[in-house]
Every structure is written in C-alpha cells, then in structure tokens.
C-alpha cells in the first residue's frame, strides 16, 4: 500500500512539475493550491471548472463577433479577450494568457485574420490545459483513495 502511494505521489509530483516546465501553469496556480484546505477540498477543481466554462462561452461569443468579415465588432472581441486574459491570469493558465496578449494586439489593429488565428490557438490551449488538469485531478483522487496525501510540490 505504501509503495503504491509513494509511486502515485511521485507520479503526481513529476506530472505537476512538467506542467509548470512546459508553460501550461504559472505561480498563480500554486496560489490556488495553497488556498485549498480541508474545509474546501475541491476549491481548485471548482475554480478551474469555472474558468473552462468561461473559456467556452467567451470563445463562442468572439467567434460570432469575428464571423462576418465586413462587420467585425472589434470592441466586443476586445472585451472578450480582456475577460479571458483576466481569468486565465487568475488561475495561472499561462499559455492561455500569453495567447490573449497576442490576441489583444491583433484586436487593437483590427486584424481579423490575426484574431481568427489567435482564437483558434486559445481554443486549442484551453482544451489542452483542461485535459492536463483532469489527469492531474484524477491522480490526486487515486492518491487519496490509496490512503495517501497530496504532496506539496515546490516549484522553482
């Protein structure tokens, strides 16, 4: 049992470190993990779930705004990008946030093609992160079910 727990904990540590190293996550995600406690054991998964819902909704809205080449509402798109940048920054979704920075630049110069590329990229990045975090949370559950505790990982 202890060997199983130790193996799972090691797997968890390696996986979460890789997410930071590959730029999926930044220190803000660490802040969220540090806020989670016994009273709110699902805090992180609940917040990221809200974030992913936000992503889906905002991307859908921006997609509609960018649909007609002659009639793009860049103000609407800019508002969506701003919101997405804000929430991605708040959860530590580094890659998503970085795409938003480029997205805003395209928006500022009314570059519809650039915006469409960024939209595609941000859609890809949030879905990728969602899969990665689902795997991370599953690992956490396996550790807990095996009777272990979630290791605190020091990210340098």
């Amino acid at each position, binding site marked *: 049992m202890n060997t199983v727990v130790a193996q799972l904990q090691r797997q968890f540590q390696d996986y979460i470190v890789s997410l930071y190293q590959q730029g999926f996550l930044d220190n803000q995600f660490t802040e969220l993990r*540090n*806020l989670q406690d016994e009273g709110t054991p699902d805090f992180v998964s609940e917040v990221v779930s809200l974030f992913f819902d936000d992503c889906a909704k905002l991307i859908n809205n921006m997609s509609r705004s960018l649909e007609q080449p002659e009639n793009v509402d860049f103000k609407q798109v800019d508002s969506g990008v*701003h919101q997405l940048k804000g929430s991605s920054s708040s959860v530590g979704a580094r890659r998503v946030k970085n795409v938003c920075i480029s997205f805003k630049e395209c928006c500022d110069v009314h570059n519809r093609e650039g915006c469409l590329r960024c939209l595609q990229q941000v859609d890809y990045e949030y879905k990728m992160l969602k899969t990665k975090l689902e795997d991370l949370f599953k690992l956490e559950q396996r550790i807990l079910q095996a009777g272990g505790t979630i290791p605190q990982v020091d990210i340098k």
Partner: protein
Amino acid sequence: MTRDIAEDVPNLAESKLTALVVDDNFVNQSIHHKLLDRLGIQNDVVCNGKEAVDVHCSGRNYDFILMDMDMPVMNGIQATKTLREMGIECKIAGVTTRADEGEKKEFMEAGLNDFQEKPLTISKLLSILHKLNFYVQT
C-alpha cells in the same frame, strides 16, 4: 489532504473585518472570496458596480471594498464615484488587469484608497490591508 499553510497566513478574524467583493467574473469572485475567507475576513460578493451601490443603499456597510474596474451595467470607476457621492467613506481598493497609467489614474481619482493589479494573491491582499491600515506587516 492538502498542505496546511495556516502557519504562514495571518488570521484576522479577531478584528472582525468585513469586505465586499465587486467583480463580474465568476473565477475572480471565487478566488477573491476565498482569499478573504483565508484571512478570516467575512465577505459578500456582488457582480457589478450597480449591485455594489444597491447593497449600500439597502443599509449594508463594509470595512473595505475590492472593486474591479471593467464590469457591465456600472463599471468600477462609476461605482466608486457614486459611492463617494453617497457619502460612503469606507476604504476602496481597485483591482484590475488593466495596467495603463491613464486608466489607473482615472480609477484612483474616482475615490480609491489603493490599487492592485490582478491576479490577487495572499501577499497582494495583505499589502492592500496594510495600505488601508487594517494590518501591520511584520
């Protein structure tokens, strides 16, 4: 289950501070609410500047307000101005991802006591509380 960092974070529950979180984004609402909870600060959450004004009109008061800038219906700048015109003197800290100096100046001039860039963290929140004279940093 998770690391207990109680020893790293001050508990301000004894000071019985109350706060209002004003933000239209559900992610930020959750995080700001939790940050305040962690510090032992009782807090309510509203979704825009108009709701912040309405809650004060209903007679509620808070020691401080965390005010987002960009919100629908009534933004943070307008809400701050309105609250000050109503005679609400509690501390208001603006929080926003917008770092443009002009926008920051406009927000401060609306009546803020402090300003922090998002994303908020425990240390940024403690810095706000210190600036607003609610907490002495050691």
